[in-house]
C-alpha cells in the first residue's frame, strides 16, 4: 500500500466496522420488540 | 391597521414583562460582556492579536447571549396557559409570534449592539471598525432571534430543552456568524465588505418571512 496502509485500511476498516455494527444493533432492537409482541399475545 | 397593532401590542406586552424583571435583561448582557472579556485572559493581552480576533469573538458572544434568552421566549407563556389563549386568538398567530420575537430581540440583541463600542476599545479596535462591527450586529442579531425562535418552539416543554435548543440552533447560526464576522474582517483587511452586508440583509428578510410562520406551526404542534 506504498506506506499509506494505515490510512487506507483504516478508512475501509472503520466503514466495515460501522456497516456491520449497525445491522447487529438493529437486529437486537428487532428481537426486543418481537419478544414484547410475543409476550403481549401475538402469534408467531 | 391591525397587522401592526397585533405585533405592537404583543411586543409592548413582552417588553413590559421583561422590564418588570430588569435583572433578566442585564444577565444576558453581562454574560455577553464576561464571555468576550474571558478571551484576553485565555489568549493573552497582545493588542495586535486581540484586534485581529475581536470581530469573531464579539459575534460568538452575541450568538451565546441570544441563545441564553431563547428558552424564556415561550416557556413562561406555555406554563401559565397564556400561550394557549394567544393561539386561540382570531388574530394571526404568526404575527403574535413575530411580536414576541421582536421583544426578545430588543431585550437580547439590541443591548449587545449598544455595548459593542465598550468591548471594541478593550480589544484595541479603531473607531471605524467598531462602527462596522455594530452595523453587522444590528443586521445580524434579528436573524439570531428569528431562527432561535424556531428552536425554542420546537423544544418547548421538552426535557433538556436549553441544551437541546443550542444543539439544534447553533449549526443554523453559522452562516450569520460567517457573514457578520467576515464583514468586519474584510473591512479590517481593506477589502470591500458591502457584499457581506447585503447577504446579512438577505438573511434578515428570509428569516423574517419564514421564521415566525414556522415557529407558529411548531408552537401549535407543541400545544396539542
Amino acid at each position: 500500500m506504498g506506506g499509506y496502509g494505515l490510512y487506507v485500511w483504516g478508512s475501509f476498516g472503520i466503514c466495515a466496522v460501522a456497516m456491520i455494527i449497525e445491522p447487529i444493533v438493529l437486529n437486537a432492537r428487532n428481537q426486543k420488540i418481537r419478544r414484547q409482541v410475543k409476550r403481549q399475545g401475538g402469534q408467531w | 391597521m391591525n397587522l401592526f397593532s397585533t405585533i405592537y401590542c404583543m411586543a409592548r406586552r413582552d417588553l413590559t414583562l421583561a422590564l418588570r424583571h430588569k435583572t433578566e435583561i442585564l444577565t444576558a448582557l453581562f454574560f455577553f460582556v464576561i464571555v468576550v472579556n474571558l478571551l484576553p485572559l485565555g489568549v493573552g493581552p497582545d493588542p495586535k492579536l486581540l484586534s485581529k480576533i475581536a470581530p469573531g469573538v464579539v459575534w460568538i458572544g452575541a450568538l451565546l447571549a441570544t441563545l441564553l434568552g431563547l428558552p424564556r421566549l415561550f416557556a413562561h407563556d406555555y406554563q401559565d396557559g397564556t400561550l394557549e389563549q394567544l393561539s386561540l386568538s382570531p388574530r394571526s398567530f404568526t404575527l403574535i409570534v413575530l411580536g414576541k420575537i421582536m421583544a426578545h430581540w430588543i431585550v437580547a440583541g439590541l443591548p449587545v449592539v449598544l455595548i459593542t463600542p465598550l468591548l471594541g476599545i478593550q480589544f484595541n479596535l479603531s473607531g471605524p471598525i467598531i462602527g462596522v462591527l455594530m452595523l453587522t450586529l444590528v443586521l445580524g442579531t434579528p436573524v439570531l432571534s428569528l431562527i432561535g425562535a424556531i428552536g425554542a418552539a420546537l423544544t418547548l416543554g421538552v426535557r433538556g430543552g436549553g441544551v437541546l435548543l443550542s444543539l439544534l440552533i447553533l449549526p443554523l447560526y453559522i452562516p450569520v456568524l460567517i457573514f457578520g464576522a467576515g464583514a468586519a474582517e474584510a473591512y479590517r483587511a481593506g477589502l470591500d465588505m458591502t457584499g457581506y452586508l447585503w447577504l446579512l440583509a438577505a438573511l434578515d428578510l428570509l428569516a423574517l418571512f419564514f421564521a415566525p410562520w414556522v415557529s407558529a406551526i411548531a408552537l401549535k404542534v407543541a400545544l396539542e
Partner: protein
Amino acid sequence: MSMVNWFKYASPASFYPLAGKLIPFFSAITAILLAVGLWISFFMAPTDFQQGEGYRIIFVHVPASWMSMFIYCVMAFWSALGFILNTRLSGMMTQALAPTGAMFAFLSLVTGSLWGKPMWGTWWVWDARLTSQLILFFLYLGFLALTSAIDDPRRRDKAGAILSLVGVVNIPIIYFSVIWWNTLHQGATVSMTKAPTMAHTMLMGMLIMALAFWGYTIAIVLKRVRCIILEREIASEWVKKNALE
C-alpha cells in the same frame, strides 16, 4: 403503480409486509455491488502518480459524503410528504433514515481526516467541503437529539419534520457561506474539492461503491422502519394477529 394502491402502502399496516419482502432483495444487491466495488478499488484502479495508494480512500470517503447529503434530502422529502398527505408512515420513515445518515456523515468525516493526514500532514483540514460535512453531522445530531427527547409520537414526527425541512433549507446557505469563509481566510490553496484527475476506472469504482452504500441504506432503513412500526403499533390489532411473518 397507480395512485390508489400507492396510497395503500402509505398505511404502516400494509407497508410492513412489503418492507419485509424488499429487505432480502436489497441486501443481495448491496452484497454484489460491494464485492465489485471493493475489487475495483483495490485491484482494478491503477496507482495514482501523485498520491500513490492513499487516494484509494476516496472509494469510501466520497460515497459516504454523498450518502450523508442524499439521506438528509430524502428525510426532508418524507417530512414534506408527511405535512402534505398527513400519513403516519412519513414520520417513521424520517426517523428510520436519520441514524444511518448520521453514521455516513461521521464516516465521511473520519475517512476525510484519514485521507488528509497522509496528503496534508494534519488530521483535520478546515476545508470548505469537510467543514460543511461537519455542520451536516451537527444537523443530524440535532435531529436525533430532538426526536429522542420528545415522547409523544405525533409531536415527535411533526417536530422532526419541521427541523429537517428547516435544515434542508439551510444546507445550501451553510455550504456557500463556508466556501466564502474559506476563500476569505486562506484562499483555497489546500483544498479537497480538487479531486485527483479522475481515471475512468476510479470514477466507476466510486459510483459502484456509492450504489452499494445506497442499497445498504435502503435495506437498513426498511428494517429499522419495521422496528419503529412494531414499536408504535404494538397496541393495534394487526400486530397482535399475524405481524411477524
